[in-house]
């Protein structure tokens, strides 16, 4: 069932948690709401569920084309998985999963044997067949998480909403559950929305990612597109590490970064539709920053000094400091590092192979953030 919200506003006192948010999620999609804390992602999820009421000026909420804004939670048909699971602590795993089925009005309630069958099926699905009589306190974090999911699925919801589903788990269990949830979604094709602040989780798991900031959706697109074609400076900054330079746009597709030997360093970019002579923020991903020993003719090369080299990993991460005292990070291959014979304290040049430039006049918030 598709989900659509239009022009949702939510204020808590004087704090605007959601500022005119609209989003449309297609049937069977797995969508991530990604953002830093306080960006409004959990509030949006809770409003979709009906656990929070949007401000009266807000637009409607549609489930499969029906306006559910005035419907009670229990009539919306949502499955909700809470961040800290919220399992009923005095009930066994079996009773937790069966709860949604046993509280239905007598007329529509399944007979006891049917409930038993359904619970057993779900227990099998979450691979906890033999723990039916345990209590939540006797389970590990990962097991609790799966019980919470089975409990939400027991009532056969139209949409599944998950609030930071892996937030409270350790790294290894997280990875396992992530894969498990993706496979489960591919099997049952339930429209699902999950909230996370972990970009890896969002990019790996979701069909589409909504990046949120300050109560607004900055970009809603596929993981590939939000990562490679970030729509705003915030998205660029939030997804993955990034080097940021201050500069000026000089017209004719040129941008100036800092100063090199007294003269402004310039480079020519393909993007031409910007305002001339405005302040600009130039972003370069660490893997797009190349390290060279000597400046290359016709390319923008900025002198820098190597501070530290982290070589424990698939790539070598090099921390540098530029002439203007900006901290830079470059990611190079082990082979490159050997060929260049880089050591901490060495002087070298960095040259960007791919950059993204954002207009600082339109992106007021960026001025505050400074160099990364």
């Amino acid at each position, binding site marked *: 069932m598709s989900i659509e919200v239009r022009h949702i506003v939510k204020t808590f006192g004087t704090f605007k948690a959601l500022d005119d948010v609209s989003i449309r999620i297609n049937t069977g999609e797995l969508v991530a709401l990604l953002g830093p804390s306080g960006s409004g992602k959990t509030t949006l999820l809770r409003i979709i*569920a*009906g*656990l929070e009421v949007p401000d009266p000026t807000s637009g409607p909420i549609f489930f499969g084309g029906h306006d559910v804004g005035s419907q009670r*939670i*229990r009539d919306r048909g*949502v*499955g*909700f998985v*809470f961040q*800290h699971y*919220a*399992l*009923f*602590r*005095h009930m066994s795993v079996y009773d937790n999963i069966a*709860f*949604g089925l046993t*509280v*239905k009005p007598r007329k529509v309630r399944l007979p006891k044997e049917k409930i038993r069958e359904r619970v057993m099926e779900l227990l099998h699905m979450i691979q906890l067949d033999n723990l039916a009589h345990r*209590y939540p*306190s006797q389970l590990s974090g990962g097991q609790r998480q799966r019980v919470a999911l089975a*409990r*939400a699925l027991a*009532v056969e919801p139209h949409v599944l909403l998950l609030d930071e589903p892996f937030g409270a788990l350790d790294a290894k269990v997280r990875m396992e559950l992530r894969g498990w949830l993706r496979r489960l979604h591919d099997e049952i094709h339930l429209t699902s929305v999950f909230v996370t602040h972990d970009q890896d989780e969002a990019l790996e798991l979701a069909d589409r990612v909504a990046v949120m900031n300050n109560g607004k959706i900055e970009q809603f697109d596929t993981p590939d597109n939000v990562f490679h074609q970030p729509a705003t400076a915030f998205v660029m900054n939030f997804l993955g590490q990034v080097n940021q330079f201050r500069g000026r746009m000089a017209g004719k597709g040129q941008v100036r970064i800092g100063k090199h030997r007294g003269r402004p360093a310039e480079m020519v970019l393909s993007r031409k539709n910007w305002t001339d002579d405005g302040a600009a923020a130039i972003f370069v991903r660490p893997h797009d920053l190349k390290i060279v020993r000597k400046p290359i003719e016709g390319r923008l090369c900025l002198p820098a000094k190597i501070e530290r080299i982290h070589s424990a990993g698939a790539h070598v991460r090099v921390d540098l400091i530029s002439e203007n005292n900006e901290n830079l990070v470059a990611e190079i291959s082990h082979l490159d590092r050997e060929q260049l014979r880089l050591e901490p304290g060495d002087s070298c040049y960095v040259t960007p192979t791919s950059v993204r430039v954002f207009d600082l006049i339109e992106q007021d918030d960026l001025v505050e953030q400074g160099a990364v």
Partner: protein
Amino acid sequence: MTEEEKQIIRKYNEHRKSILRSTTEPRGVRILLIALSVLFMSLFLFVPLVSIFYEAFRSGAGFFLRAVSDRAAMSALRMTLLATCISVPANLVFGLCAAWCIGKFQFRGKSILVSLIDIPFAISPVIAGLLFIFLFGTNSLLGIWFRDHGYRILYAAPSVVIVTIFVTFPFVVREILPVIQAQGTEEEQAARVLGARGWHIFWRVTLPNIRWAVLYGVILCNARAMGEFGAVMVVVGNSPKTNTLPLHINALYQGYADPAAPFAVATLLALMAILTLVLKCFVEWKMSSAESDA
């Protein structure tokens, strides 16, 4: 055992001792502290309790039975049970409602309500009694209304019940509230999303989670309701018809009855108190095991 092994064990024991030395008080201090508390407990708690029973049975079991089964004693027991049986359930219902709405919802005037709940704790029972004398007295509107409609409040059973409710009012709320606040509302929200209605949520999710706190509050409330003296004394004076057990014991003690009689009746109250104490210990033990489960 080889010499080497023996040495290892000796070293281990020495190490253990040094750890014990650095983390506990010297033996003498420990003994002194324990002895002091045992002495204090026996002087102030155990000896008086035993002496009540001793005094009660000094004139023989026959006298004891007569003293506790005479009409005045029986009437006092009935009055105490009446006051307890009404005030405890009333405060249970009130306590659950108040703790539920304070713990689970946000509303204006919440902090005022919380401090109002503590009033019976803060003021002396005698003042509480006087308060009701003013409220239901012959010159007050409420007093006149009740008199005109043929109800007797003061110097009768209703006033005993009312002041007992007033005095024992905070016990249940005060026990439940912290537990409810610590548990938050996530489980209730989960139940709501799963389709449960308000009543269901209360019975199947909230109540089971706070059941031991509720019982603990009820026991404390019960203990206080049985033992209340000052407030009841003010509203009913000292008439054999409306005496509760504490008042009856006082009357016997002040009067010319056999000196063993008040002690005999006091054993009834003491026995009820001991029973309450045993229940309280059991509930405390249950609560702590429920906590360590969670």
